[in-house]
């Protein structure tokens, strides 16, 4: 942990939230994509985040307290998963991608993207980004205050 650890940690948060916003915008942009190369409608994507942890992995209760892991080193995105929720069914028999037979005859499978939900996630990611920016600024203010010590 160095002098600039705050900046590194907040930077990882900023990067993660940027990616979150990217994924959300992709979800919203594809809210009506009924056709994909994998077949079926577009599936909503979810970002999975996890703390960065590249410290000692050897664990023993014989280790002295002082060697316990310190604070972490920020956040990383481990995976972008597909949401497996069922697609939204809309009745539109004239649509070229409408289901041809069975129980859902005449229905079109639309992506399982809920725009309202995405907007709420977007606001939340936006605020998280802002919080990390504030963290950087307050760390900077602390450094600058420290420099005025003894003046």
């Amino acid at each position, binding site marked *: *942990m160095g*002098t*600039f650890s705050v*900046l590194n940690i*907040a*930077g990882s948060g*900023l*990067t993660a939230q*940027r990616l979150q916003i990217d994924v959300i915008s992709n979800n919203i942009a594809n809210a009506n994509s009924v056709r994909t190369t994998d077949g079926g409608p577009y599936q909503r994507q979810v970002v999975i985040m996890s703390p960065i942890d590249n*410290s*000692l992995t050897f664990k023993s209760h014989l280790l*002295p*307290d*002082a*060697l*316990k*892991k*310190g*604070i972490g*080193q920020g956040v990383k995105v481990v995976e972008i998963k597909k949401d497996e929720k069922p697609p939204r069914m809309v009745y539109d028999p004239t649509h070229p991608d409408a289901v041809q037979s069975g129980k859902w005859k005449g229905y079109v499978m639309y992506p399982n993207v809920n725009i309202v939900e995405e907007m709420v996630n977007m606001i939340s990611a936006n605020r998280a980004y802002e919080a990390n*920016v504030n963290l*950087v600024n307050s760390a*900077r203010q602390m*450094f*600058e205050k420290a*420099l005025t010590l003894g003046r």
Partner: protein
Amino acid sequence: MEIYSKQQVIGDQIGLGTSQKMHINGKDNPVKSDDPVKPFAEVLFNAVDQVNQLQIESNNLEEQWIVAPDEVDIHQVMIASEKARLSVSFMKTIVEKAMKAYNDIMMIR
């Protein structure tokens, strides 16, 4: 009790935990620096070198931001330049303090 090197420990907890009496139940367990007699000039040169390294990093990121904006996030550029700026002002403060100490000694008559 020096089984593990300090490099293995993440977080500044070990530094606090072993150097300050109040953090180790009042036991006396001072931490000795690896080499307490490093000349000041060497320390200063190292510091200047690291500060310069941060400047170079910031420069590279800015350049990349202009040449290939998709490969770098703007906040990375800002954070790098902030690091560079802060490290310069750290260094400046230290050098000013050293010069003041030197001048104070020279003023002894």
